[in-house]
């Protein structure tokens, strides 16, 4: 049963990722991107990383893509740009894509199709505190003991990113107002 669910959602994810690349409209691309990120979250769930699946949906598909949609609709949603498939670009994509996909398929061929995986426990066992576990508490135990410094640095980095966004989005007085539609409410 997990194998069938894996193939189904892997197919959905890859298909929507293709639509992200091949779509003319940026808004349609963003919608397909949301589906792709949700598909990746389902794959996280199939890997028993339920906390990560939740984070992926809340943060990535929920907040990041909504921000993307805001900006896409702010910056001239009218233009529908076709992807540019010049022969040189196609050659580049073809070479890199074939190398990557062929190596992945070779790798997949080397090993058995399905294996028995021991069920992931809720909390890690005493003798191996870094074992894979599904509970949020297991993530928290490692996050606040062994990975405390990266955790604090990540918090600080979010503060710096917020300051950076505020500074970057101020209008300087010498800027030419070149927007095609009038979005100023001042």
């Amino acid at each position, binding site marked *: 049963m*997990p*194998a069938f669910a*894996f193939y189904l959602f*892997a197919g959905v*994810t890859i298909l929507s*990722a293709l639509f*992200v*690349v091949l779509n003319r409209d*940026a808004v349609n*691309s*963003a919608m397909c*991107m949301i589906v*792709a*990120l949700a598909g*990746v979250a389902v*794959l*996280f769930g199939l890997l028993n*990383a339920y*906390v*990560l699946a939740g984070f*992926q949906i809340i*943060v*990535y598909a929920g907040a*990041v893509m909504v*921000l*993307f949609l805001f900006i896409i609709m702010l*910056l*001239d949603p009218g*233009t529908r740009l076709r*992807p*540019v498939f010049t022969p040189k*670009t196609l050659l*580049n*994509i073809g070479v*890199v*894509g074939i190398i*990557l996909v062929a*190596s992945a*398929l070779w*790798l*997949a061929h080397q*090993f058995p*199709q399905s294996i*028995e*995986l021991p069920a992931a426990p809720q909390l*890690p066992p005493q003798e191996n505190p*870094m*074992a*894979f576990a599904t509970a949020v508490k*297991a*993530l928290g135990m490692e996050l606040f003991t062994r990975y405390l410094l990266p955790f604090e640095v*990540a918090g600080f980095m*979010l503060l710096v*990113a917020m300051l950076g*966004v505020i500074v*970057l*989005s101020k*209008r300087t007085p010498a*800027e030419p107002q*070149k927007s095609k539609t009038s979005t100023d409410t001042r």
Partner: protein
Amino acid sequence: MHPGLQAYLTVAVILFAIGFGGVLVRRNTLVIYMCLELMLSAATLALTAFSRYNNMMDGVLFVFFIITVAAAEVAVGLAIIVALYRRRGSVVVDDLNHLKD
């Protein structure tokens, strides 16, 4: 019966290749940025698969930090793109060629 580790890695590689192709062919800066995020997502999928199949928690924690950093990066990157749009009036990469000779 779970699919092997290589199945997840194959999906991650295919997603990465699609994102990479998207960065090359698209002309809208925002869609290029979305394909970048797709590549990042593919890497997180590979990390989680490795973490699960080797019975470790390190990969999951790393993905936690990757998601955090990616969210901050998207915020700053979109602010840069908006500032660029205000300067140049366009988000099409063909028009953003002021560094060219």
